[in-house]
């Protein structure tokens, strides 16, 4: 078992790195780092639904959309971001609960299709209902949150604001996954029939897995609204849901830190591969396929495997070492 002390030290170091990273950087780099955090939140949510609870969803981008549009419309109407965002999260939670209902009837690829269809429907509504959403032109000019002494208009303060939100979201997620709820989510993934026979109301926990995961998507959306200050339906299509899914899988589904790693790779890889110009998506797709062949449990899984190899005496906690490869 990895000593808890060391793990916290590692987290503290990473946090220090996150604080120091944007200092002295160009605003584009700060923007990229901020979107890393935003997507890490969305991926964290999907990781709960898919990685912990085992319910595939291809609709995470649509929850970012709902979060983003609700926050945008409310802040444009003069509401403060801090009031608009909880309402956006609530909206996502409720819609996520509804999207969970199909999961009570169908699993696996059928669920993938239902959620994919849902994502496309949300996209169509955003594009067609111009009176509300501005149609293809989207919404723009949303104010960034003003916290009195601390205004987030400039990129760097907004980065720190996003970092603070991310830390709070991560702590909340940590609380959820180590609580009995977290255990129930994993039991749902591993063996729903057995879980039901042990008194677990699997219907309720399935719906919660969707609702909470969706609310995280909504939080990411609320941050996107302020980050980009311009939202359009095309930013929340099925392709983006797929991207978030890849973040979860690349990082390591069902591991707590996986989404941070995965979103980092998915966001930063295009930057690193910039010199390849148009070919980056090709390289990227090939890398994903190769990884799925050789390391389906994700990068965290590879890390744990290496660690087992080199420090075999300090045994990694069993459920970390295996990662949670998808069923």
């Amino acid at each position: 078992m990895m000593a808890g002390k060391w793990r916290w030290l590692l987290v503290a170091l990473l946090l220090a790195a996150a604080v120091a990273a944007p200092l002295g950087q160009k605003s584009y780099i700060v923007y990229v780092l901020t979107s890393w955090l935003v997507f890490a939140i969305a991926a964290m949510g999907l990781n709960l639904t898919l990685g912990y609870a085992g319910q595939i969803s291809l609709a995470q981008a649509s929850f970012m959309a709902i979060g983003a549009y609700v926050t945008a419309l409310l802040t444009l109407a003069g509401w403060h971001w801090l009031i608009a965002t909880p309402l956006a999260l609530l909206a996502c939670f409720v819609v996520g609960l509804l999207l969970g209902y199909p999961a009570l009837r169908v699993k696996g690829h059928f669920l993938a299709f239902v959620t994919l269809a849902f994502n496309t429907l949300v996209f169509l509504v955003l594009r067609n209902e111009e009176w509300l959403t501005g149609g293809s032109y989207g919404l723009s000019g949303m104010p960034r949150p003003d916290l009195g002494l601390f205004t987030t208009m400039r990129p760097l303060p907004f980065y720190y604001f996003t970092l603070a939100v991310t830390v709070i979201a991560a702590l909340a997620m940590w609380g959820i996954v180590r609580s009995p709820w977290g255990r129930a989510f994993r039991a749902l993934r591993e063996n729903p029939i057995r879980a039901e026979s042990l008194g677990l109301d699997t219907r309720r926990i399935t719906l919660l897995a969707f609702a909470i995961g969706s609310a995280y998507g909504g939080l990411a959306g609320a941050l996107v609204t302020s980050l980009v200050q311009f939202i359009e339906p095309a930013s929340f299509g099925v392709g983006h849901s797929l991207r978030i899914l890849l973040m979860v899988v690349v990082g390591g589904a069902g591991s707590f830190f996986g989404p941070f790693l995965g979103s980092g790779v998915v966001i930063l890889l295009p930057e690193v591969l910039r010199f390849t110009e148009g070919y980056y998506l090709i390289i990227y797709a090939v890398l994903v396929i190769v990884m799925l062949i050789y390391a389906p449990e994700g990068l965290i899984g590879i890390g744990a495997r290496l660690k087992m190899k080199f420090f075999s005496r300090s045994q990694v906690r069993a459920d970390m070492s295996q990662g949670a490869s998808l069923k």
Partner: protein
Amino acid sequence: MSQFLQVLLSGLATGSIYALAAIGFALVWQAAQTVNFAQGEFVMVPAFFVLIGMGFFGMPFWLALAFGLALSMLVLGYAFKKLIVEPILPHGGITLIIATMALAILLKETVKESYSAEAQPFPALFSNAPMNFFGAAVSIQDILNLIVSLSIVVVLTLFLNRTRTGRSMQAAAQNPAVAEILGVNVKRMVLYTFLINAALASLAAFLITPVYLAKFSNGETIGLIAFIAAIVGGFNQIRGALVGGLLIGVLDNLTATYVTAQYRAALPLVLLIMIILVRPQGIMGTSEGRSV
């Protein structure tokens, strides 16, 4: 009335082409539990193989079609199975779904970067001239597309039901363990299924590309409609995928003409969600043999 007939017939024509892709999709699912999210790209790519055959190797159209078909079976059938499905399937269905999504990106981007991002004209197999059909002006292309794709379905059904190989393929898909005991070479039968899927996708490509032009992004719509057709009709039957394809083709055309063009794309999705919730085995499907 004549407009209705026209809309109906052209819906059936497109629908029958969707059905080809949907049938391939369902076959591969049955034989190897592979949900191919790249199926749409499997219909997009063969058109470019043909264009390469004509443009790069200077083949005549008919030879380029044969070349496209063969190359598709090799790449989208054989290589797909060997390089992607075989190594990843043991890791689980969802992992494979994600891999096929990555494959879709790979195919799309490769075509875009190496051939062209612009829509390319594609020679038509049949004349597009209108023809009078009970007072409706219907294009000969639509009628012939419908006839050709239905014939392909008939031939495929005969092959699967009447030939030894076809029956072995069905046995291998339904119960691989028993089939193996009965002396069926299950692995080979599964490979045949992948080859047939690639062939069906190519034929669908040859029929539909003259209508839509050849473009790297064509697969997005076709793929989604093929899944929906397969699910709506019933995943485990050729008949189901055929009915699903025709139904969606017709409904799509009818909605676009009579109800709303804006939400045209929404209709198949709503249909999909309703079918999955109300009748997950599909319109024609039987609940046995489908574990969800």
